[in-house]
């Protein structure tokens, strides 16, 4: 895997201040710790020593962590740390160069994007990617269609299954629009929705695929503080329906406020993992975000 690396004084420093639940990253697979006392059946998604290279660039370097059922999990890090890359690997957009990703015990590496979605992982995009000329309702119905079985033939002849699924899909989509708070825009073309509404619509569309795990890629980007508070409430509400949430976020306050556990990436490496409180006090994290004073080393 990764080349055995010399620990710099800096890193040793981090070791000393490291919160209790995480042993030293001595590099190499053998030293990978039983990170926490996680029972296997609690693990929903496992990122196992994933390395992802683009040519000579190592975007992810031996990253491992796992998500537990029912938690809100934060993936944070400074710009270019590899958060979105990691996210893309988990949703099938990129294929890891090395390592494995297992969802509910089953490897998802090499699976098609739509298979992964139907398997229970839904996502939103960092820069909103709705179907701009479809109405809000239709957007959500595309998500709901993921689990529909209406064939071209039954759509062509309007067989009973078509009516049944069309009706239930519509009802469920409306319910989801209500859930995210934009039911009044159901009939409007999504490009005419406000930015905040579009973000909510994207979440509704992702939820319509009936996910076990919902991945949100910087959902608060471009939000004002009031909107962020509303988003926090929405994320909690989603979790309360039994969906596990993975949150990629820039805004530390938002992440600290809502997540149960956090993994911090920097330069494609995991530099910390723990509860928000643990991560906040981790000097490596502070260094990554604020930089290290020259006299610290």
């Amino acid at each position, binding site marked *: 895997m990764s080349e055995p690396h010399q620990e710099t004084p800096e890193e040793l420093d981090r070791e000393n201040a490291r919160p209790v639940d995480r042993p030293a990253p001595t590099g190499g697979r053998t030293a990978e710790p039983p990170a926490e006392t996680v029972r296997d059946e609690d693990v929903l998604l496992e990122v196992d020593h994933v390395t992802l290279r683009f040519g000579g660039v190592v975007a992810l370097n031996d990253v491992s962590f796992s998500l537990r059922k029912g938690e809100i999990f934060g993936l944070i890090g400074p710009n270019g740390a590899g958060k979105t890359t990691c996210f893309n690997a988990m949703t099938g957009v990129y294929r890891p160069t090395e390592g494995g990703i297992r969802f509910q015990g089953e490897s998802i590496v090499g699976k098609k994007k*739509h298979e992964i979605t139907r398997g229970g992982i839904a996502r939103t995009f960092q820069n909103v*990617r709705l*179907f701009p000329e479809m109405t809000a309702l239709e957007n959500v*119905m*595309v998500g709901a269609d993921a689990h529909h079985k209406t064939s071209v033939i039954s759509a*062509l002849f309007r067989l009973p299954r078509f009516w049944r699924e069309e009706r239930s899909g519509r009802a469920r989509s409306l319910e989801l629009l209500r859930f995210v708070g934009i039911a009044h825009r159901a009939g*409007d073309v999504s*490009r005419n929705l*406000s930015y905040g509404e579009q973000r909510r619509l994207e979440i509704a569309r992702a939820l319509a695929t009936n996910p076990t795990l919902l991945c949100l890629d910087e959902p608060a980007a471009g939000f004002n503080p009031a909107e962020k508070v509303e988003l926090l409430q929405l994320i909690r509400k989603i979790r309360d329906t039994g969906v596990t949430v993975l949150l990629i976020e820039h805004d530390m306050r938002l992440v600290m406020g809502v997540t149960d556990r956090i993994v911090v990436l920097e330069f494609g490496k995991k530099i910390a993992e723990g509860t928000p409180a643990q991560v906040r006090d981790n000097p490596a994290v502070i260094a990554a975000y604020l930089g290290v004073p020259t006299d610290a080393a």
Partner: protein
Amino acid sequence: MSETASSFRENGGVRGWLGRQPIWVRWLLILAGTVAAFLLPYAEHVPLIGPQIVTEGVDWSSALFEISYYVLLALGLNVVVGYAGLLDLGYVGFFAVGAYGTALLTSPDSILYEDTGWKWLMAVPVALALTMVAGVLLGWPTLRLRGDYLAIVTLGFAEIIRIVATSTTTLRGDRGFASIPHPPGSWGGEPIFGVTDAIPYFWLGLVIIILVILGVRNLDRSRVGRSWLAIREDEEAAEVMGVRTFKYKLWAFAIGAFIGGLGGVLFAGEQSFINSQTFVLQFSILVLAGVVMGGSGNMAGAILGGVLISYIPNRLRGLSVGDTDLYEYRFALFGLAIIVIMVLRPQGLIPSRRRAMELKDREKEVAPQ
């Protein structure tokens, strides 16, 4: 962004008006339109208007039949280009497969004649299945390509079909297939589908067109149509939302091929003779021009486009300005008409509302103001 109409329901124009009418008014209008279409062959007897529509010296019912299969082709291509957003430049290939399929199974010139020699109606399902297979065979390896690359491959496909038809002895090239049987049926001892009168063929074409419209409309307003639209708008987002993009693109191809094949089967049944000269590339381009001109992504637009591409050149026959016979310049004039329409209405004559907006969005991207 918010300045554009915020909802389809608030649209003005004829369609906006139509949308506000009670359902029975709409049905009545549709019924009236259908009846009028069936009465079109008798348009020349209508005083004042008749002579304006009908071209002197041209068999009006044959011209109408020609319009009907052009409309059929436009409807089929519209599924591929307008709905799924796949640029197909070789659509005539499917028309050819439908026609040749019929010919091979029915014509005495066919090497299969000993074994088959079927009636027209028996050959239809097989020929249509053949075109769908052709659609899938073409789509399977090529639908992974996008945009221009797909266009080039489909262009090649149509040329391959034409060249194979020209150069293989089985498909008889220029000599073609003769005596392809007409559709069945008789009325008072006389066969309905005869040699001289093209009206029954036009009616048959109309019936098929109506069935195709109903079928495509059903597909459009289902998860199939939503998937096509999602693919057209953002293919990757569609896939991430669980849409099997490849499957639905392949279906679009197969359905388009099927409808194109219908046109071919109908054509072979009326003409009774086909050869490789019929299926030239211009044909594909012409139909595509019709779809784009009429308004791709919208069936009414595609139908209008199909009508125009076959009607305009025909109408120019016998018209003259001074000593110049306009018919000689029909392609130039036709090209001019297309250019004028595309300049004035780039979204097409009867555009799909969505398509029109997509186009506007793209314009903004190109030339931000």
